[in-house]
């Protein structure tokens, strides 16, 4: 039953397993479902184990039980623009009355027809689907028989709930808040026994007591603590401006976590050359050669940057555009230097557009594993950092 739905979910990247699917079948057999509404909640409770996947579930549900054809999956951009109640026209009652009223069926047919015809976004007219117009379709319009597209609706049928995509904000492939970044970073750990001996070592206590002919002798051991040391290197260059907020969130997550044995951070511009900067203004640099003497190779290194620069900036011996003195090696050489000094290095890239195919990005990607700066990407990166090479 509903087997294609299983594959629709898979296609929408909801992580469902056979086990869970069998549980759902069991629940259906036991008569837990009266209507589609129940099914919507039941299937979600059984199959989806994180609110971050609710949105994909909604899309899949919508597609499979189709009240609305999948062509209707509005792009993020269109939705954003639709919910913006700009240019709301003020119509006189006569004008409103003059607008032709259609019945619902006619309306839906007409809607699908126009959606097919419509190629671009549209504001304030009287035909296309958009905001603030008098066309029967769209948001914030004033047509009395109008149909609401993509906004909050009143009808609470299951497909409608799915259509609302209420949980869009919980998706984890979109970057989220500091807390979630913290959760991801927390997995970056290696537990070693360090510190004061204040945990009772039972086995040794028993051993010692026996050897002591029954006279109790307590033995202690050191508790386990995280031994991971983290080095965060952030690009603070001009092309990173749009991601400044994002980077500061990652920084505050790592900085306030109080989870690592040591946490160090430095800034660079486009690409690290001879020096790194302890502050974002990049005033007083610290020589990397010096740093490598104090930073042991077991530091886990996370680069954050868009890796987009002129090829000369990466490859030329004197590629640093802000520095005109002596430069020891090219950016790429320097990155290789990092790679040979540290055992675990990853690169997080906030840029997710076409710029990702830029030559310098590709070159750096060959050097370090590169991930999106999102919760999902960070999780992958952390996994990479904790695996043995």
């Amino acid at each position, binding site marked *: 039953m509903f087997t294609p739905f299983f594959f629709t979910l898979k296609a929408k990247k909801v992580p469902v397993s056979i086990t869970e699917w069998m549980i759902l079948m069991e629940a259906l057999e036991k*008569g837990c479902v009266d209507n589609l509404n*129940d099914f919507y*909640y039941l299937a*979600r*409770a059984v199959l989806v*184990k994180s609110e971050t996947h609710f949105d994909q579930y909604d899309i899949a549900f919508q597609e499979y039980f189709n009240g609305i054809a999948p062509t209707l999956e509005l792009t993020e951009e269109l939705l954003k623009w639709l919910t913006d109640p700009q240019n709301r026209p003020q119509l006189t009652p006569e004008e409103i009355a003059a607008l032709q009223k259609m019945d619902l069926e006619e309306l839906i047919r007409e809607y699908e027809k126009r959606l097919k015809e419509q190629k671009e976004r549209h504001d304030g007219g009287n035909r296309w689907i958009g905001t603030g117009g008098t066309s029967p379709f769209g948001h914030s319009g004033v047509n009395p028989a109008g149909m609401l597209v993509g906004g909050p609706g009143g009808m609470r049928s299951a497909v409608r709930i799915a259509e609302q995509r209420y949980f869009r904000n919980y998706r984890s492939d979109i970057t989220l808040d500091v807390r979630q970044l913290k*959760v991801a970073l927390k997995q970056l750990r290696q537990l070693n026994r360090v510190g004061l001996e204040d945990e009772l070592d039972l086995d040794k206590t*028993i051993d010692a007591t026996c050897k002591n002919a029954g006279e*109790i002798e307590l033995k202690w051991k050191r508790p386990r603590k995280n031994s991971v040391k983290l080095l965060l290197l952030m690009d603070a260059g001009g092309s990173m401006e749009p991601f400044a907020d994002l980077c500061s969130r990652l920084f505050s997550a790592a900085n306030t976590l109080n989870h690592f044995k040591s946490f160090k951070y430095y800034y660079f511009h486009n690409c690290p050359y001879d020096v790194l900067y302890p502050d974002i203004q990049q005033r007083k640099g610290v020589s990397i050669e010096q740093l490598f003497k104090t930073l042991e190779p077991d530091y886990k290194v996370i680069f954050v940057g868009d890796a987009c620069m002129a090829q000369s900036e990466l490859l030329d011996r004197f590629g640093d555009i802000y520095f005109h003195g002596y430069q020891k090696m090219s950016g790429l050489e320097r990155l290789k230097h990092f790679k040979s000094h540290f055992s675990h290095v990853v690169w997080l890239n906030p840029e997710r557009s076409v710029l990702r195919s830029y030559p310098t990005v590709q070159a750096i990607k060959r050097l370090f594993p590169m991930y999106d700066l999102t919760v999902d990407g960070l*999780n992958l990166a952390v996994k990479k950092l904790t695996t043995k090479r």
Partner: protein
Amino acid sequence: MDQKSFEQFKGSKDYVISDALKNAVNVSIVLQRPLLVRGEPGTGKTLLAHSIASSLGKELIRWNIKSTTKAQEGCYVYDTVQRLNDSRFGGKDVADIKHYIKLGKMGQAFTAPSQVVLLIDEIDKADLEFPNDLLNELDEMSFYIPETDETISAAVRPIVLITSNNEKELPDAFLRRCIFHYIDFPEPELMEDIVRVHFPNIKNSLLKDALESFYTLRKIDDFRKKPSTSELIDWIQALMASGMDGKIKDGEIPFLGTLVKKEADLDYYVSHNVKKKPATRGYNVSGN
């Protein structure tokens, strides 16, 4: 199972519940699988267990998880130190190891003569491997005590409710075995019901003003910790006790500290919303 045994739980007088959650609770009862409830702190995850227990007339066994809790402790604890002590200084029969096996909360739930509700509270507080260590115990509802060569298995499978604040990701294998529900933050209408459950005699005007102010605060995305239901309840209690209303006047909110707990958030609110007192505008006449 027939229709009758389904639809058991309908919410209780003191706990307002959404359809989706009610559905999830009942499904987990029918399928005899643990229900994992996740949500912001203060959305009533723990109270849900109390509500299930009281409305179904079952005993509630609560296992509070801390960062140091080990899975084994839920099953049983072998008090070796006590035994060692007794063997040295005399006491109970040291030869019988059973005297030193104490059942944990899960063990108590399994051995209870009738069905109980077992609440495993804040599972994400524990170590990352903790949920994995519980897989078999929750699946089979039984565990083995090697010391006494005994197997404790549940005569009646308890209703298991697990709550999580999402501080740590839970392992996939564990999630696969659970029914999942995410308690979303209540819409104003549902919130009105929830407040009325706590304060049946609340004045309509006070409720309306308080909720309005509350949801205005919730909209501030820069808060590190947004005020939640339990804070709202506390706040309304303070308002009622003092006889004030919950209106925002020039950005000032009475007892703001009960709603906003973090200092940084308080500072943020005050600096962005509280209007500076006009210096040249004469007297500010306001009747209360």
